[in-house]
C-alpha cells in the first residue's frame, strides 16, 4: 500500500504504544496523511484541489446540518422558513450564504480537480478505480446539489424540479409513470419537497463513503504527478507530512479567502433572482435556468432540437446529457496513449485546451435564454464535446507521437543535476498500443 522507503510509525509515548496495540488509528493516520505516506515531490497546485474538495464537503455538511435545524421541509412554509433563517436565526444569514455559495465553491473546486484528471491523464492505469469512484462522486454531487436547490421552494426551485424530473418523462413507455413516482404526484409539491429534503440530507453521507473509497483506491498506487512518470525511488518523493500538509494548508487559506469574498460581498451573484420569489405553479418564469454548474450539461440537453429518425428530440437531449458525463467512465479505455501527462502529448494537449474552451462556451450558452444564436452555438459546441471524447481521443491516442518523457520525477525536477546514476538517460519513448 505504500513505497518500501515510507517512514514507519514508531510510537514512543506509552499511551500511544498502548493505543497502537488496541486500535492502530494513529498509525493509520500516520500512514495516510502523515510522515508515513510518500508523495511525488513535483506536484503542482492542481494537486491541491482534492483536499479543497474535502474541505468543501465538510463545510457543506456542517453548515447543512445546522441549517436543517431551522428549515422546515413543507411546501407551505419552506420559503418562509428560509427567510426566517436569513432574518431571525443568529448568524443564519451567514450559514445560508455559506451553504449556497459553498455549493458553488465545491463545483469550482471539483471542476478544476476533474480537469486536472483530464489534462494529466489521472484516469489511466493503475488509477482507473480512483477515477471511476471520482465520477461517481460527481454524479452524486449533482443529484445532491439539484435537490438542495429545490429546498428553498422559490420559483427556480419549483420550475427546476419540474424541468429536471420532466426529463424522465422522455423515457419511452415508463417515462410518465416514472416521473410521477419520482415526484409523488403530477407536479412538484409537498411530497417531492419532503423526499428531496430527505435525500439531500442522505446523499452527502453517501458521498463521504465514496470519498473514503476514492482516497483508499488512490493510496494504493499513490498520487500521479505532472510528468505522469511513476515514482521510481525515494528521491522522487517527499513525506506527506510536513511537505504537503504545509502546501495544502496555505492553499486552504487562499481558497477560504476567495470563498469569503463571495460569501460576504457577492452572496447572491451566482444565484438567480427568481428564487427569491415563492414557488408559484401558476406562473412560469421567462427563462428557466439551473444553477451555473449545470449550465454546460443544460446546453447539451437543449442542443437537440430536432427529432432524429424515430428518436424524439427531447429523448435525444436527455440521452446526450447523461452520456456527456457517463462517457467519463470510459476514459481509461478510450485513451490508449501510454503517456499520462498532456505535457508530453503535443497533439492531445491542443485538443484538451479546446475542450476546456468548448465547455466554457457550452456553459455560457446553457445560462443564456433558449434563443438563437445560443442554441446553434451550443449545437456546434456539443458536436465538439462528443467528438472530443468519442472520436478524437481514441484516434489521437493511437496516432500521436509523444515527446520523450524524463527518466524520473527527480530528473524532471532537477534537470539531471545531482542524479549520478541516471543523468543523461531518458526513458525510451513508449510505443503506442
Amino acid at each position, binding site marked *: 500500500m505504500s513505497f518500501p522507503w515510507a517512514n514507519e510509525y514508531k510510537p514512543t509515548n506509552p499511551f500511544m504504544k498502548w493505543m497502537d496495540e488496541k486500535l492502530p488509528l494513529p498509525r493509520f493516520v500516520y500512514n495516510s496523511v502523515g510522515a508515513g505516506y510518500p508523495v511525488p515531490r513535483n506536484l503542482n497546485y492542481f494537486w491541491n484541489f482534492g483536499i479543497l474538495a474535502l474541505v468543501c464537503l465538510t463545510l457543506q455538511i456542517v453548515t447543512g446540518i445546522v441549517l436543517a435545524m431551522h428549515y422546515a421541509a413543507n411546501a407551505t412554509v419552506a420559503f418562509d422558513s428560509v427567510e426566517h433563517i436569513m432574518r431571525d436565526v443568529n448568524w443564519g444569514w451567514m450559514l445560508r450564504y455559506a451553504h449556497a455559495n459553498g455549493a458553488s465553491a465545491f463545483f469550482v473546486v471539483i471542476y478544476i480537480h476533474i480537469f486536472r484528471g483530464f489534462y494529466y491523464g489521472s484516469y489511466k492505469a493503475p488509477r482507473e478505480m480512483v477515477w471511476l469512484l471520482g465520477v461517481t462522486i460527481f454524479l452524486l454531487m449533482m443529484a445532491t446539489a439539484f435537490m438542495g436547490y429545490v429546498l428553498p421552494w422559490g420559483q427556480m426551485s419549483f420550475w427546476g424540479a419540474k424541468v429536471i424530473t420532466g426529463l424522465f418523462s422522455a423515457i419511452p413507455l415508463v417515462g410518465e409513470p416514472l416521473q410521477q413516482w419520482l415526484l409523488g404526484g403530477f407536479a412538484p409539491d409537498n411530497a417531492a419537497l419532503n423526499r428531496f429534503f430527505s435525500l439531500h440530507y442522505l446523499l452527502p453521507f453517501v458521498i463521504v463513503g465514496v470519498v473514503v473509497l476514492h482516497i483508499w483506491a488512490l493510496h494504493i498506487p499513490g498520487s500521479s504527478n505532472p510528468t505522469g512518470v511513476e515514482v521510481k525511488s525515494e528521491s522522487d518523493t517527499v513525506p506527506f507530512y510536513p511537505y504537503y500538509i504545509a502546501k495544502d494548508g496555505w492553499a486552504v487559506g487562499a481558497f*477560504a479567502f476567495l470563498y469569503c469574498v463571495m460569501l460576504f460581498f457577492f452572496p447572491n451573484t451566482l444565484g438567480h433572482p427568481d428564487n427569491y420569489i415563492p414557488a408559484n405553479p401558476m406562473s412560469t418564469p421567462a427563462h428557466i435556468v439551473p444553477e451555473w454548474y449545470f449550465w454546460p450539461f443544460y446546453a447539451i440537453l437543449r442542443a437537440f*432540437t430536432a427529432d432524429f429518425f424515430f428518436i424524439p428530440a427531447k429523448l435525444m437531449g436527455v440521452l446526450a446529457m447523461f452520456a456527456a458525463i457517463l462517457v467519463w467512465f470510459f476514459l481509461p479505455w478510450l485513451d490508449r496513449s501510454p503517456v499520462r501527462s498532456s505535457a508530453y502529448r503535443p497533439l492531445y494537449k491542443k485538443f484538451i485546451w479546446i475542450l476546456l474552451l468548448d465547455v466554457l462556451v457550452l456553459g455560457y450558452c446553457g445560462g443564456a435564454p433558449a434563443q438563437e444564436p445560443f442554441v446553434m452555438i451550443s449545437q456546434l459546441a456539443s458536436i465538439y464535446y462528443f467528438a472530443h471524447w468519442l472520436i478524437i481521443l481514441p484516434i489521437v491516442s493511437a496516432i500521436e507521437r509523444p515527446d520523450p518523457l524524463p527518466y524520473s520525477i527527480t530528473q524532471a525536477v532537477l534537470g539531471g543535476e545531482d542524479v549520478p546514476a541516471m543523468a543523461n538517460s531518458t526513458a525510451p519513448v513508449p510505443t503506442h498500443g
Partner: protein
Amino acid sequence: MIRIISILVGLFFTVALVWSFGNGALIAITEPSPETAEHEFHRHPKEVHFASDGAFGRFDRQQLQRGFQVYKEVCSACHSLQHVAFRDLAALGYSEAEIKAIAAGFQVPGVDPNTGEAALRPGMATDYFPKPFANDIAARAANNNAVPPDLSLITKARHEGPAYVYSLLTGYHDQPAELLKKFPEAETPAGLYYNPYFPNLNLAMAPPLTSEGQVSYSDGTKATVEQMAKDVSAFLIWTAEPTLEKRKQTGWPVLGFLLFATVLGYMSYKNIWADKKKV
C-alpha cells in the same frame, strides 16, 4: 473494439446534432423570429447609487426612515411586506415607543377575546406588517387582475433589484410614437400603464408616485418623485436583507484574518520546502 464502438456512438451524437443544427439553421433562414416591441423597447434599469452599495456600504438610516414613510403612505395600500415585523424597524433608528406607535397604527388580524371570532386589533411590535388584501382573489379584483407582489424581497427578486425598483417608479411615460408606428398591435391595453422598465412594457400598477410633496418628509428633504423613489428603493434594500450591513462589516475582519493566516501558511510552506526544491 471499444474504439470502434466509441466512434460509432460519437458519430451518433454528432450526426444528430448536425441534423438539429441544420434544422435550426433552416428555420432561422426561412422564418426569422419576428421583432417584438418588448425586445426593442424594454430598457435596462437606470444607474442609481445607494449608501449601502459597495464593500463598505452602510444604510443611510435617515433615508430608510423616509423610504419607510413612502412605503407606509403609498405602497402599503396594495403591497404587503410580510417578512418584516414592526420590531425590525428598530434597525432604522426608531425607539421602542415609536415602534409601538407605528405598530398600533396598523390593524392586524386577531381574535376577539370574548367571542373567539376573527377580528382586527391594533398591531404590536411583534406583529408582521399586515397584508392589504385578504387573499389573492381580492387583490386581483382590486388591481385589474394583477396581484401586487409582496415587497419584502423585491430588490433581491429582480435583476439589479434596487435600480429596477427606482427605474420602474420613475419610468412611467406615454408610449413612444415610434413604438406604435412599428408595432401598432402593441398599444397599451386599457387599465394598464406603459413603463419601458417592466419586462413586457405594460403593467397594471398605476404610477404610484406622481407629484412632488406627495409625502411630507419630517426631516425637511424635498419630496421629489425621484427622491421618494430612491428612498423607498433604499428602504426595500433593507427589507430584502436587513443583515446586509452586518454581513459587510463581518466580511472585513474575516478577510483580514484569513489573509494573515494564509500569509503565515505560505511562509511556513516556503520554509518547510526550502531544502527540498534543490536537493
